Every structure is written in C-alpha cells, then in structure tokens.
C-alpha cells in the first residue's frame, strides 16, 4: 500500500459505549501514528479501560468507528487480531504455566514460527532482565515481572499496535523503568502504543495525551502544549501538616484547586504574586504552620487538577 506511511496505525471516530444509562465512552475521536505513544489519563471511572477494550475489539461499541492498520475493527474484529496486542489491567496470563510456556502458548496462537519465537523471546526476556526466570511459574513472579512477562507475550507476534491498560499499576520503580525502556525501543520499531494510565509521571512520557473525564476526552495534546494551556500558576506550600494547609487555602479567593503532593500542597492560583500574601495570612490566621511557599512550573498532576476542575465549572 502506497499510503501506508501517512495512514495512522489507529484511527478512531465518534466512538461511543453505553452501559445502561451511563455513557462510559462518549464520541471519542483520536488517532495514533506508527511509533507514537498515546496516553489516556483521567480519574477512575473516566472510561479508560472501556476505551482499551473497544480498541482491542473484545467489546463491541454502540457507535463510531475504529480503523486499525486500515482494517475496520468494529466490523471485522478477527482481521485486526494479528496486528494488535492487548494487555489488560488484570494480569491475564496463566499462573500455573512457566514463563516459557506462556510465551510459547501465545506464539502458537498467533502462528509464529518456532525459530522466530525463540529468537524474539530471548531478546525480549533479556531486555527485561527476565532470562533467569524462564522456568519459573508465572504465579511465582513479582508484580513487576508479571507485567514484563505480559509485555513479552504481547510482543511475541510483533504487533503493529500495542494496547496497554494501566501496565505498571503496582509495579516497583525498577521494573517500571525497564518496562518503559522496552516501550521506547518499540516506538523506534514503529509500533503504535496506546496506554491508559493513572500515573501522571507515566503520562509525561507519552507523546500525546488525552485527558478523560466521565467518558469524554476534554483535552488532547502533547504534555508540554497541555502545560501551556494551564490557566494560572502553581504555588507549592511546604507544610508539616499539608492536609490542614490544603483545607485552609482551598476555599480562598482566586484559588482554582489544591492537591496534596507528598509533604506539600500545590495550589492553582490565577496569579502567584497577587495571591501569595492572602495565602500566607490565611494560614497564619488558622494557626497552620508552613515552611515556605514558592512558585513552581506545573507538572502533569497540577495540569490535570487545574484543567479538569476548570471544565467541571
């Protein structure tokens, strides 16, 4: 096909899924090109998992179209299977099978030649530091290794589109880094990756982000462009009792939102210089101790809170 390079690997239009009266996904449209990492972020219940299931063609949509590698995935779900790999949120492999047996099972289902399978499995397992555990049963792996095995099984048939639903939930930081290193490698191979996550540091690794709330995609852009959208500025309050500090400042005039970030509170204000004095005064009046307040560059978390609360109003 001559138009292959310009055609996005995944193209979604007007995608809608309802569960009874609730609309889980509401006329979603986006595209993900080969070699792109597209992330869906949003609170629980925003519809991220439903999107991944619809894209994996394991759930039929109520309306809209999904075209994967030029094939209509809604009308012909079986024809896109060999292009797509789906890793659901819950570990979906066989705990009573070993690492190697799980890999062999999925390779057989996808009709991979034995030589190709062995070479690819060796490479993927080495990349994720799993080589010593090939004979271990999947049920005895740590959470991080389970996810890496899941990824290995997902990649054994060299899919063109990789769908990951909360791939690093409950995974230790080291495994998480391994995991993303593999994903970056795939990007180089031209795999289109669609990932749903509630980890915002993970979101910042994506090429583009779709911010979801209640089934609707409110924003869709690169992380830096989204940060530029940020209305107002961020003040970080370092305080020994951050919860008390948050409660005091949240209701002040000019404050768009306040969230806890470790030992500090991030406050979205319409103008940092203008509101600083009022915040200090309010904390002092409420007898809430604080160390320092400084203006910081917004993170994805801040952006998230700010953009989603703004839209809600």
């Amino acid at each position, binding site marked *: 096909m001559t138009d292959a390079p310009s055609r996005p690997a995944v193209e979604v239009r007007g995608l809608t899924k309802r569960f009874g009266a609730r609309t889980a996904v509401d006329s979603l449209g986006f595209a993900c090109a080969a070699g792109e990492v597209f992330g869906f972020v949003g609170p629980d219940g925003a519809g991220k998992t439903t999107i991944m*299931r619809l894209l*994996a*063609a*394991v*759930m*039929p949509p109520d309306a809209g179209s999904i075209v994967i590698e030029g094939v209509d995935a809604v009308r012909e*779900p*079986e024809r896109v*299977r*060999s292009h*797509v*790999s*789906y*890793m*659901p949120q*819950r*570990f*979906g*492999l*066989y*705990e*009573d*099978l070993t690492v190697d*047996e799980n890999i*062999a*099972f*999925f390779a*057989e*289902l*996808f*009709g991979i030649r034995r030589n190709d399978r062995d070479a690819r499995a060796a490479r993927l397992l080495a990349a994720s530091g799993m080589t010593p555990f090939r004979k271990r*049963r999947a049920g005895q792996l740590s959470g991080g290794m389970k996810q890496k095995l899941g990824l290995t*099984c997902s990649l054994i048939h060299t899919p063109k589109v990789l769908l990951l639903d909360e791939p690093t939930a409950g995974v230790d930081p080291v495994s998480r880094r391994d995991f993303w290193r593999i994903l970056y490698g795939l990007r180089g191979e031209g795999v289109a990756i669609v990932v749903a996550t509630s980890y915002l540091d993970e979101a910042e690794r994506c090429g583009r982000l779709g911010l979801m709330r209640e089934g609707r995609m409110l924003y869709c852009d690169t992380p830096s462009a989204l940060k530029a959208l940020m209305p107002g500025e961020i003040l970080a309050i370092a305080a020994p009792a951050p919860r008390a500090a948050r409660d005091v400042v949240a209701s002040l005039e000019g404050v768009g939102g306040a969230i806890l970030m470790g030992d500090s509170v991030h406050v979205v204000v319409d103008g940092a210089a203008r509101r600083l004095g009022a915040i200090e005064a309010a904390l002092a009046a409420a007898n809430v101790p604080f160390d320092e307040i400084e203006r910081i560059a917004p993170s994805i978390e801040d952006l998230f809170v700010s953009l989603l609360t703004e839209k809600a109003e």
Partner: protein
Amino acid sequence: MMLRRVRAVAQKEIIQILRDPRSLMVVLLMPLMQMALLGYGVNLDIKHVPACVFDREGSQQSQSLLKAFQASQYFSVVESERTYADVTRAIDAGRCKIAIVVPHDFSETLANANAASVQAILDATDDNTANIALGYAQAVIGAASGNIQLERAQAMGQPPPVVPAVAEYRVWYNEDLVSRNYIMPGVVALVMALVGAQLTSLTISREWERGTMEVLVSTPVTSLELMAGKILPYFVIGLIDAAFCLMIAVFWFQAPFRGSISTLFFTTSLFLVVVLGLGYFISASIKSQVGASQIALVATLLPTTLLSGFAFPIEQMPAPIQWLTYLVPARYYFSILKSIFLKGSGIADLAAPIAALALYAAVVGLLAARAFKKTLG
C-alpha cells in the same frame, strides 16, 4: 480452524490439569467412589427377608411347608411363635417383615378340599419389599403344597393330582434375574454423565474468573478452536474414567459382559462427546466456576437418575414424561450399555440409540460453540 491453535490450547490445558494434582485426583477418584457407592448401595434384589412362623397345626405337612421357607434363600426364619399376640409383637418390633401362619386344619383341608389356605401377615411400611416378599411367599407355598399333594397321592397309590397348565419360564439375557446385572450398566451411565459434565464445566468459567479470558479473546483463536482444544484433553480423561468404571462393573461387581470392546469404545466416546459438550456449554454460558459446576451437577444428576430408565422403567411413565426422557442423553447410553452387556449387541443392533446420541452430540456441539462469544460482558 487451525490445528496448530487447537493443539496449543490442548497442550496448555493438559499442563494445567497435570499441575493441579488435587483436581486431577478428584477427576480420577470421583468416578471410582461413585461406582463403589452406587454399586453397593443400589440393589433391587430382596433376599433373606426376616420371617417368623406360627404353626397352629404342628403336623408333618405343616412342618414340611415351613421347612420350605427355611430352605428358600428369599426368607430367613428368625423365630417361631406360639400365639397371635407373639406374631403381632414380632412384626411391631420389626424383628420380621413377614409372618406365616399355618391354620390348625391345614393338612385336613388339603386332603379333603384339595386346597388349603395359609395366612401371611406382612409389614408393608416398605410396600415394594412387602410386594416382592408376598410374591416369593406364594411361590414357596405353591411349590411346597404341590409336593405335599404329590407325596400323599403316591403314598395312597393314586394317580398324581391333575395340575392345571403351568407356565414354563425361560429368562433370557439376565438368567438369574439378578438386578445388579441390570443396575451396573445404569451406574456406569450415571457416573459417566456426572463426571463428564463436571470435567468441562469449569474450563471456560475458570478463565473468566482468573482474568485470562480477556487476553485470550483478543488473540486470533476462534471459538471452535478453543472448544476443540479444551474438550480434547478431557475426552482422554473421560475415556480413562470410563475404562475404570467399566472394569469395576465387570471385574468387581461381576456384571456379565457379552458385547465387543470396540462397540463399547465407540458408543462410550459418543456419549462422552455429548456430556463433555454439555459441561462446556454450561461453562461458556455461566461465568462463575461454582455456578457452572452446580448447574452441571443438577443438569446431569436429576435427569439421569429419574428419567434415564435406570431407577424407574420408562414404559411405566405417563406419556408426557416419556417424551421428556428423549431429551436425556443417558437414556440412550443406558440402553446401549444394557444391550452390550447383557445381549452382546453390536453397532448395527444399536443403530437407533447411536443415531440419537450422534444427533445429540451435534446439537450440543453447535450450542456450545455458539455459547462462547469472543466479547466481554
């Protein structure tokens, strides 16, 4: 359908079965236990009915009549009574199920009227036992009194008394009328129906419960490939179970086997496909393991015990219930097993029930393949 994917699913399933020794034991031991339980528990023969006798005459004739009771394997005379009150007490206390009372003028009436009456008092709280015991009592008394008359005629130098037409019985296929010979094929059919549906009832629901199905449905495996791959290993286990059950029936319970092994193998395979398909259908329709297993139990146990002809003869059922029995696959397998065991029937003799099972297998297979959908919720 790609054989490679069928093989992959079957291999995966075999590894899972072998790695779960507890459920493997259940799969192999459950039929053995059921065979032992049902083989010993279900016995429709009534022998050694406890009896008491009350001889009001005390003559040689009356004694020889009562000796006939003593000698019969159907009765064991546990006590002799002296009064009616003793008879009543013995029956009330449950020491005997039947009391034989010989009247004081037994030999005299027998001599004069050529017919005498003997009283039998029965405890009919269990009406089936009472009925059968009564039949036995009539046979014993009839034979004994015939002998008495014959002896007396010979003693008096008279021609033997004229005996009305007597039926001469030739019992075919189960010559000894031993109910176990007829029950064992039924027990095998029952156990195979139960075990077969149980084997596959978990196979799909387990994948849903463990969350492995969500990945599986996103792969190119088709529902037919999945079904074939999943049923195949259980078919082998089912055949092993069937071999165990049939060997227990023949070698342990001494059920006569007159047919050919190949007919048995063919028909058993056919029945296994039906019950395994039924279990798979239930498993695919119900996404919880406990629910699927229980429904499989109810769906096989009740119809098989009540409607297969094993416990209650189908010919005796009201017409609508008889129609219902056509829906019970064990009905066909039971009649096939009975014929192979007792008559030595071959495949040609069994064409009708085999055709019914084949039709059943096709329908169940179709339903099972359609019940599984490659979509969530």
